[in-house]
């Protein structure tokens, strides 16, 4: 059983081939990191999984239901005219959930990302990290089976980044959605994912598919363990090979 599958997909843009051919299956509850050099098509692969884009060739299968797939972009992508609560409630309201119920679930989702008390805050008054948490809450509010993250922490400082990485893993542990996230940071990939898939330079093909060892969510000091360092080196080597190829 899989949550989403890419089968021999290729994507062509006007300027040429952007991705593929790539085949990839995502199992329920797995956390998968897509790493690769800039322009390798990893964000394109993510949009295929989200159903926001169609492949030029090949087949994409994914859970069809509303809210079963959720996306978090690199920017928080919040509506500035809505308070945090209304931003989070939006996916529910668009699906026709009644307003009081949507509000209750939005507040609960904000609580899960550590933002209880910030329900009425407008995005402009939030820090980058807080805005990203609102974005996460909005993605989680529909209890998705597949959570897609497109370089979600790239614009944040290192401390906020690490805190959010742990938070995402804690949230994952609560409901165990499959998570696919795109990053160009190998350490982040190994830390957050039980499986790291390496794409070559564009048009991206899969040049490495590694299972990382260790418990999820990660124990404290996981970054200093030899297994972590070895995995980082292994992925980095595959990445270097993919760039040279």
């Amino acid at each position, binding site marked *: 059983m899989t949550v989403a599958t890419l089968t021999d997909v290729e994507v062509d843009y006007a300027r040429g081939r952007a991705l593929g051919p790539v085949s990839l299956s995502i199992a329920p509850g797995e956390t998968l990191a897509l790493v690769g050099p800039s322009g390798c098509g990893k964000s394109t692969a993510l949009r295929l999984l*989200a159903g926001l884009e169609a492949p030029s060739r090949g087949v994409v299968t994914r859970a069809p239901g509303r809210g079963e797939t959720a996306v978090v972009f690199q920017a928080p*992508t919040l509506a500035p*005219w*809505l308070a945090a609560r209304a931003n989070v409630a939006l*996916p529910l309201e668009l*699906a026709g959930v009644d307003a009081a119920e949507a509000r209750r679930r939005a507040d609960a989702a904000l609580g899960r990302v550590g933002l209880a008390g910030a329900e009425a805050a407008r995005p*402009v008054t939030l820090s980058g990290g807080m805005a990203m948490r609102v974005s996460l809450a909005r993605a989680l509010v529909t209890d998705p089976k597949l959570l897609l993250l497109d370089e979600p922490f790239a614009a944040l400082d290192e401390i906020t980044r690490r805190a959010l990485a742990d938070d995402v893993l804690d949230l994952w542990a609560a409901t165990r959605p499959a998570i696919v996230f795109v990053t160009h940071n190998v350490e982040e990939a190994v830390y957050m994912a039980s499986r790291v898939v390496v794409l070559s330079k564009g048009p991206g093909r899969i040049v490495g598919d590694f299972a990382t060892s260790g418990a999820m969510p990660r124990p404290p000091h996981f970054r200093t363990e030899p297994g972590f360092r070895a995995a980082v080196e292994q992925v980095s080597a595959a990445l270097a090979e993919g760039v040279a190829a």
Partner: protein
Amino acid sequence: MSRLVAPLLLTALLLLVWEVACRALDVPSYFLPPPSAVAISLKENLAVLIAAGWRTVSTAVIALVLASLIAQALALITALSPLLDRAIRPLASVVQVTPVIAIAPLVLIWAGLDHPQRALVTLAVLVAFFPIFSGAVSGLRSADPDLERLFSLYGASRWQKVLRLRLPSAVPFLLEGHKVGAGLALIGAVVAEFSAGSGGVRGLAWQILDSSNKLQTARMIAALVVLGAMGVALHALLEALERTGLKWWRGR
């Protein structure tokens, strides 16, 4: 503080130079009356000028409201249908590039010479329309593309996208468009009065024309002062509205 003091000082200095030069050089008052003469004329004609100014401003305000309704309705239609978008936009540009003074005689005939007020409003609407329309069109296209993708992902209908995403995204553009449109509506009202000429509606432009015919230069400048003051007041009002609106929209 110096933001207010500096321009006031400069204005006072210029008025002083003007006054002294008029007296020293013995400039004839039909050519350039000194500021003191303008002030006296302003005081004598104040009631008439304010009543005239009110007529001109009310023409502009009615035109602004009508232009706002028409422009936003058309912009919404272009947002909903690409076909109508392609049909409407070139015509809207034609309205924008045609000088209002050139259309005035035609509009006067159509409105009927017995209804000059209708003609004036129509002409002012034509001038105020474009900035609001183009602001609304850009605004309706200004939604964050990623937010638009999220709406698609969550299965939003076309109407939901328009009402819950594109319209709210357009608010800052609409505020800006109305601010520019209000200034143009006032200019449009004055230009329309000039071209209507006959004095059917005795607004400020008519006062200026009438003074000019009678060579009452001081009264003419007094009318200009009232017009300027009303323009500044209207602009300040709309700027305050824009600021308040943006604050409400953004929450800060």
